[in-house]
């Protein structure tokens, strides 16, 4: 009898343990699906409350894919990946370009993509979360009566598309993901971003580090509900500060590192310095002229040149030249269409459900929100008819789209495969968009622009200042790719010097750090007291040079970049004291 009871109790213990273990195991399995974002009220202001611009963003389902680390995921950091655009799909970008377990390989002859196992997967060093932004990639938004053209047209405005709500969306997705995964909720988070994603990451980090300013009237963007959500997260992760304002130095124990791939940061000054460098004698444009035999005619020598051109006028002249010689501005060592061709091939592949399942590691037929039956209120594009004539107004980081780009945008992929499995969508909805031009147009022309709010990422100085505030607390890695004209990173060190309220100097060190295979650093000297909550005087940004890469470094030098990031994380003490810098782990008695 005693033996039976002992066996029964032992069985019960095993069952409970297995249940708990199952829950833990469930949290560390690959996942793909949507994070729901509800309607939310926020506003912009210039310190006059009743003259503020109140806005309410629409509901959205944000696509995200989680891949746990190869080993011991509960003790590994979370790397959060996203691309830019704005309106660019991470799924066709970083997710497909040699960061996850699988990658898309594009045949250089046929431009067809295939799924391959990725030997340079970042799962080697951590858990991965890839996120598509609002109405890009697989993400879609929702509204009442999406069939009403006028109402749907009105959705493409500042309430859904501006740099701050864009960053806030990602903060919400990240915090809700962490809350749903308590086994890694306290773990360090590293943002890994590309292109316009640089703007998104600096907004995200500023929201996270200086969160109270976004509810007490100090910041131009006010989002009290988001601030409460951030506080709730900190109440869990930093219980010693529960209910109090957590200082940025403590917050940076979790949000401690960022990896920026050819980022937009201080866009106007980056462009200003870039065109000065590119228009200077002996620049890479003269090298291209010698290589191709087609001379580059500088802006001022063009017969149609205007007096006092903006940096964007001059850059358009450069883009025209690159196009003339048949090269790709995103990677000018390659023929035109190389960069976008990868996105197109990845998009074509991902809109086959079996390939999507293979890439994500998840049976995507089990994702209910993918089905047409769950998308009666979904929308993803503005117009039904061809509107090629309307696309010259764009906030895209790169060259403005061409008519042919627009035509392929409306129906980028046949989607018959998805339709067969998930159902036919409404005409204003799509399963996948690798680059949503409606998003970039909404960023460029919306109510905040018409009412002169200083929040346009292309022109406003505030983003560079926010970035420098963040860097005082967050270790930063920025790629310097050789062949990228769109984000010409050699301009970045000098561009940062324009923020004289923060910095006394910004210097490019092309030699350091010692023994680096791909050297490069940016040395920053801060004005004392220029960053709230910090006594920082100097900071170093890792700035490695990638001799064979353009705008998407993981696409062309994935192993090199992963090695550099791993080495940098080690040198900044990330792995060695991952537990030390996160007191919660100590309090929980987690062994190193």
């Amino acid at each position, binding site marked *: 009898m005693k033996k039976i009871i002992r066996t029964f109790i032992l069985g019960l213990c095993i069952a409970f343990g297995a249940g708990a273990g199952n829950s833990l195991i469930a949290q560390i399995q690959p996942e793909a699906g949507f994070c729901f974002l509800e309607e939310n*009220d926020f506003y912009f202001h*210039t*310190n*006059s*409350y*009743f*003259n503020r*611009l*109140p*806005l*309410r963003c629409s509901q959205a389902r944000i696509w995200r894919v989680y891949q746990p680390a190869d080993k011991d995921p509960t003790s590994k950091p979370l790397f959060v990946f996203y691309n830019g655009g704005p309106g660019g799909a991470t799924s066709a970008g970083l997710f497909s370009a040699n960061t996850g377990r699988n990658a898309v390989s594009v045949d250089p002859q046929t431009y067809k993509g295939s799924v391959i196992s990725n030997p340079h997967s970042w799962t080697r060093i951590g858990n991965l979360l890839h996120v598509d932004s609002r109405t890009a990639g697989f993400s879609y938004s929702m509204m009442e009566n999406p069939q009403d053209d006028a109402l749907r047209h*009105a959705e493409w*405005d500042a*309430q859904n598309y501006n740099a701050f709500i864009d960053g806030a969306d990602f903060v919400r997705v990240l915090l809700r993901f962490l809350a749903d995964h308590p086994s890694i909720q306290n773990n360090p988070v590293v943002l890994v971003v590309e292109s316009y994603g640089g703007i998104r990451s600096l907004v995200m980090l500023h929201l996270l580090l200086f969160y109270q300013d976004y*509810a*007490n*009237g*100090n910041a*131009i963007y*006010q989002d*009290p509900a988001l601030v409460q959500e951030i506080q709730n997260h900190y109440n869990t992760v930093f219980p010693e500060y529960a209910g109090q304002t957590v200082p940025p130095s403590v917050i940076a124990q979790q949000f401690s590192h960022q990896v920026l791939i050819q980022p937009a940061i201080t866009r106007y000054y980056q462009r200003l310095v870039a065109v000065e460098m590119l228009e200077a004698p002996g620049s890479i444009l003269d090298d291209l002229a010698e290589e191709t035999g087609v001379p580059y005619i500088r802006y001022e020598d063009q017969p149609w040149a205007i007096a006092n051109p903006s940096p964007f006028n001059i850059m358009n002249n450069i883009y025209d030249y690159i196009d003339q010689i048949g090269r790709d501005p995103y990677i000018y060592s390659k023929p035109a269409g190389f960069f976008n061709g990868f996105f197109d091939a990845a998009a074509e592949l991902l809109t086959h459900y079996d390939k999507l399942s293979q890439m994500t590691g998840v049976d995507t037929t089990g994702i209910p929100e993918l089905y047409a039956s769950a998308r009666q209120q979904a929308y993803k594009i503005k117009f039904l008819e061809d509107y090629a*004539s*309307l*696309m*010259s*107004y764009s906030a895209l980081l790169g060259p403005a789209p061409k008519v042919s780009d627009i035509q392929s945008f409306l129906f980028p992929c046949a989607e018959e495969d998805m339709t067969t499995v998930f159902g036919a969508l409404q005409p204003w909805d799509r399963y996948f968009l690798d680059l949503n031009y409606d998003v970039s*147009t909404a960023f460029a*022309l*919306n*109510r905040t622009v*018409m*009412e*002169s709010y*200083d929040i346009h990422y292309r022109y406003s100085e505030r983003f560079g200042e926010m970035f420098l505030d963040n860097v005082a607390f967050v270790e930063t890695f920025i790629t310097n790719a050789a062949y990228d004209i769109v984000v010409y990173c050699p301009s970045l060190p000098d561009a940062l010097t324009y923020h004289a309220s923060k910095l006394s100097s910004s210097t490019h060190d092309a030699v350091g750090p010692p023994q680096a295979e791909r050297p490069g650093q940016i040395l920053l000297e801060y004005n004392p007291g220029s960053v709230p909550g910090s006594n920082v005087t100097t900071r170093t940004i890792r700035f490695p040079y990638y001799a064979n890469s353009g705008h998407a470094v993981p696409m062309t030098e994935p192993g090199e970049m992963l090695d550099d990031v791993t080495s940098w994380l080690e040198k900044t003490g990330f792995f060695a004291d991952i537990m030390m810098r996160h007191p919660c782990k100590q309090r929980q008695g987690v062994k190193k």
Partner: protein
Amino acid sequence: MIKIGFFRVMVATWLVWALFFLPTISAAEERFQIELYGGISFVNPKDFNLLSKAEQQYNDIYFIERLRSYNGYFVNDFPEIREAIPGGIRFRYHVSEKLSFSLAAEGFFQKKEQTFEGSFYYSSTASENHTKRYDPYKLRLSGFAVLGGIHYRLPVGSKTDIEVGAAAGWAKAQFDFSSNWTYRAIYQGTSVSYDSVDGGILEEDGSGNGFMGQAMLRLNRMLGRRIGFFVETAFSYCRMKSVEGGGREIRINIPGETTWEGAWGIKKEEIHLLWGDKEVLVPTNYWAGWIDSQRERDFVLDLSGFRLVLGIVFRL
């Protein structure tokens, strides 16, 4: 010396006695008097009128100055309350021919309402048009006071006399303001168009009470034994400091409304713009979510000012 001082005291005592007691009321039944009066008062409740001044400044900053390179105009002339219509009833008791006491109940009211719009535009390869409209912008001020007074009459003719007086009492006042506005921005480029409308209704109200004092000078003319009229000018002093009220805001693109209650104060807004910073003092009773240093000072509802009234006298 002592004799001169004693003499002076005696003369003064006699004068006081004569002032109050020597002239007797001719008939006991005419001691009571009712007066009805109305006219115009000139007030300048500066903190209340800051509502309009602040609105003008906002339009200067956000509209006129921001679009200064555009064509167009905006009559940025918001109404203020500088006068009110008083009216009252006063009960008078004559203790003597010249001296009387009174109890008055009076009120005042003023409303200003205006509908106007302005637009700015430019037109070249693209066109842009910004229009702001108020339909309407309203201010309203009213109050009520109960005052006890003392009056002294000096005959200047058989039926005419000049009177001086003073009164003091308690007053209660309330105000409200409403702004129903829209702002439309239209952009038409060669290949893209944009059209958006913003707008809302902002309503706030407040009330307070406090001491009121008056000093009066008037000319009386009797038309008969029991009826007459007067013309009175007076200066009223009344400053209310604890003013509280509610508010409501509706914005057209945000469903629902926001309501609040709060104490009125003067807020200093340091408005950060691309082309520089501007400072605006605005009265408000909405303080949620803002830092304390923005409260510049208390809000004072100042109803002081001169007034001119005509009245009818009925002697009982």
